[in-house]
């Protein structure tokens, strides 16, 4: 029963998932915002300062929130203050989906 239900769900979701993939190929949520991190953290978040690719979204959000309280601010603390909560969430979700 469970298996049948699983198959049905998969079938129902397949077209929607395929459609989402097509549209998101050029409008990837958070990608352009996250590319602001690439100059120091590497293209796609690996190869420079702390690796962001594959980090959990909640961990990135937590670190950013801590940086906002640092005074006097280091360079990254200034960046943490430069984005809204919604923008930080988009950036964090984007990096979380990349391979660790």
């Amino acid at each position: 029963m469970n298996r049948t239900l699983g198959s049905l769900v998969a079938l129902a979701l397949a077209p929607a998932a395929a459609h989402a993939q097509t549209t998101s190929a050029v409008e990837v949520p958070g990608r352009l915002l996250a590319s602001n991190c690439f100059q120091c953290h590497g293209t796609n978040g690996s190869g420079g300062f702390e690796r962001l690719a594959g980090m959990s979204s909640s961990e990135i959000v937590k670190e950013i929130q801590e940086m906002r309280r640092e005074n006097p601010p280091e360079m990254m603390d200034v960046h943490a203050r430069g984005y809204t909560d919604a923008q930080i969430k988009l950036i964090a979700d984007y990096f979380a989906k990349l391979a660790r």
Partner: protein
Amino acid sequence: MIKRRDFIKLLSSAGVGMTAAGWSGFAAADKRRTTSAAAAVVPTIAGVKGRVVVIGGGMGGATVAKYLRMWGGTGVDVTLVEREPVYTSNIMSNLVLNGQRTVQSLQYGYGNLANKYGIRMMQGNVVAIDPVGRKITLADGTLLAYDKLVLSPGIDFETVPGLETAEAQAKVPHAWKAGQQTTALRNMIAAMPNNGAFVMSIPAAPYRCPPGPYERACVVADWLRRNKPGARVIVLDANPKIMAEPNAFLEGFALHGIQYYTNAVIDHVDTGSMSVYTNLGRVDANVINVIPPQRAGAVITDNGLADVGGRWTGVNVLTYEANHIAGVHVIGDASATTQPKAGHIANQEAKVCADAMVRAFAGKNPDPSPVTNSSCYSPITADTASWLTAVFGFDAATGTMKVVGGAATEAASRSKDNYEEMLKWFNTLMSDSFA
């Protein structure tokens, strides 16, 4: 301007390794798209199709070419036209002046762009742009058709009275485009007598790299203090105040004993007597470094595209498309925006431009609220540095990029940690643009 024959002479005389990557970038053009490396990072995306020609392979041009392929996929055909076989980074080039780096260590080839991303590299000089017919002409007669054109030519210089000839420019180098002149200025500083005078001038803003001239004064003075007893550094600034990182540079000027004059306007330079004539009087020097007033690269001014003050191109910062010429986008130092003229932000402007183009090729609108950031480190001594950073958000009311929080922030103090971070920042930024 470095003439082509001088560049070649420099390469052979200095034994500069013309990096294998540099030449292979151009040689490999025909093999693009067939390499497995390109297949790994350039996706195939249905419904995205377009031809882009990029003029200028600096921080902006290299980055926009790379991200057009990374984000637009195999359907976006990208040709990058560049005059030189390798790029020489202006960032960090002040450290050539104190002997910590060589010009060779600042050179980046185009091999990755060609082989890894499948970008067609063309070495040449653009002689004409036809924005109506959407094509450009190279000096050798080659015609390149485009759907969208990106101009990222950087800066060129206004002529300073007294420095009209190549001989005069060789005696008083600007060293504001890294290369032969940077090495020449380093050699002049190294040959200065004890008690000698190094005089440099800063042009009225906007100019390339706002903190750069002050950084130069500091690293040169730091080196002279340790190597040429009694030597003086005199800074003639056309601006009314220090244009970036005032706290770090005022401390640096005091530390190094730099004589700093504001509102100093150069009338002319006499390379015979090695004197700078200004509204504040005559200044005699052993070494003179005039950083001339600046404008967009010649491909902009020669083709009637400099609609802002006759020097820069006004752009829509959602796409970087020129305000008055459809299909022509201008990024980096050559565009007139509220953002600084510097390599780090040219890299981010390139990503905004690439993203908007890819969306346009798919029939989509640009991101309505782009964010960019400017970050840089400035050495104050041979082992300490300061930094400056700002995040810019799109302001719909004015159609401009505005600093979030109102102002750029500088480091609380210079430090050795900042100096170490500077090296990592530089290497990562260059990789994000060229690798």
